[in-house]
């Protein structure tokens, strides 16, 4: 086990997986409670267009993906505020548009682009020190926000209309939330991949909701799920020589299955 961490890339891999895993897990609670399941998929797929453009033009990938994420968040926020178009409809449109543009950009680039696979399903070997720094900043921002704006986020998730009537600044919360999810997704794609990031943004919250009595318990349970599955997933990937992104997702699903079975047995016994 100690030998595992004697490689620099493994230390990077585990650190990155933890930072992104816990960030996604904390956000997953609000996504599940607000029934915005589609948002992770949307932000992930939208990032693809930005990444492909950056590869084509040789631009800074991190910068371009974060900008793509911000544009995505802004578009959903402003279009859905008009209330003429449903939030999920816009996400669906942007998602396919960005994927289409991404495929066009890649086809324009002469020769083979091996990195693309890495972005689709994650490639933890690509994680650099800069990536870790970015992930650490995003992670800290999320933890601080959840502590400082605990109430606001809770009431926003519970009932947006009533929260607004009672003075909670729901528009600001809504915008910052969309923005955070988009940024977390684009900074997590190297670890988990565009296609798989949805799993991280849903499963921990779904598991936590089965057991938690309060939203804060939910945040704690989901973070533990996120931490354990990220670390276990990477260790499994190393020993079985399988890709880490999918390995994390499968581990997480394992926890979901166990949790689901125990919950069902537990409720049967209680009756």
């Amino acid at each position, binding site marked *: 086990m100690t030998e595992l961490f004697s490689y620099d890339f493994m230390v990077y891999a585990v650190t990155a997986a933890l930072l992104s895993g816990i960030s996604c897990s904390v956000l997953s609670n609000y996504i599940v*409670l607000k*029934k915005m399941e589609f948002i992770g998929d949307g932000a992930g797929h939208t990032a693809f267009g930005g990444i492909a453009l950056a590869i084509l033009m040789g631009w800074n990938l991190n910068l371009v993906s974060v900008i793509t994420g911000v544009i995505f968040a802004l578009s959903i926020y402003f279009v859905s505020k008009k209330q003429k178009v449903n939030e999920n409809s816009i996400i669906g449109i942007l998602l396919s548009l960005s994927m289409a543009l991404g495929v066009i950009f890649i086809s324009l680039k002469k020769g083979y682009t091996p990195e693309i696979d890495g972005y689709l399903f994650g490639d933890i070997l690509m994680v650099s020190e800069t990536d870790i720094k970015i992930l650490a900043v995003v992670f800290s921002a999320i933890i601080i926000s959840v502590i400082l704006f605990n*109430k*606001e986020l*809770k*009431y926003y*998730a*519970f*009932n947006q*209309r*009533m*929260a*607004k*009537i*009672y*003075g*909670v600044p729901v528009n600001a919360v809504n915008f910052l939330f969309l923005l955070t999810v988009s940024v977390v997704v684009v900074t997590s794609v190297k670890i988990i991949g565009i296609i798989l990031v949805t799993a991280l943004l849903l499963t921990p919250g779904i598991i936590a*909701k089965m057991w*938690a*009595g*309060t*939203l804060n*318990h*939910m945040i704690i349970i989901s973070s533990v799920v996120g931490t354990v599955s990220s670390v276990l997933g990477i260790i499994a990937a190393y020993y079985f020589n399988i890709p880490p992104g999918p390995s994390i997702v499968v581990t997480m699903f394992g926890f979901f299955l166990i949790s689901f079975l125990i919950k069902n047995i537990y409720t049967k016994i209680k009756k």
Partner: protein
Amino acid sequence: MTETIIRAKNVGYETENTLILKNINFEISKKDFVGIIGPNGAGKSTLIKILLGEIEGYTGDVEIRGKIGYVPQHDFIDKTFPISALEVVLMGLYKETGILRRFKKEHINRALEVMKILEIDKLKNRKVGKLSGGEYQRLMLSRALVSGPDILILDEPEAGVDKKGQKLFYNLMKKLNEEQGITVILVSHDISMIFSETNKVMCLNRTLHCHKNTSEMNRDDFKKIYSDSLEMLVHIDEPLKVVSRND
């Protein structure tokens, strides 16, 4: 001396070229107990949203002199949402928290006090999804009352509550109105209750058809106002019942 607490002058509202409300004029005095009736889609909830300041872009003037507490119309919630009854009531005190937005002991005590009066204090840690219809209704009322409003607006609060619970709820309204002097505005389909308990009735169907003392209003008036705009079923004996197309 009756003091006006809400005044609406020529209020109208139109959205996407459909007329929702037109020519609404009324005055509500302090300590009034007002009943609002009207068919589904008549604009009752919209009028309330205007009073709450939720809707912009209406025409006319609305003047409100007091703090409003509000119980929404079937406020569908996720039954599995992990939030306790106490946390929901505290939402009503959010505006009163300081710069740091923390709930203090004083806020929690006030919330528990209201919950005690409405006999749901023992349920303070219960998840809202586990409350019965009547308990949930009193929870919504606790949240509306916790900040000490002058005006209480309830939009069809009877949903999911049995007849006995409804009766208790109306008595509670009456008590709040008479003993605490709270102005109550109640939207309801329970016309027999509206006629027996309230001191003013407003019949709304896009526009306000009448605004009189209940004693001045008789069944024929009522029939005249309504019969051309909705299918109405009046049981000539007791009780009076309106059935709209949507029911």
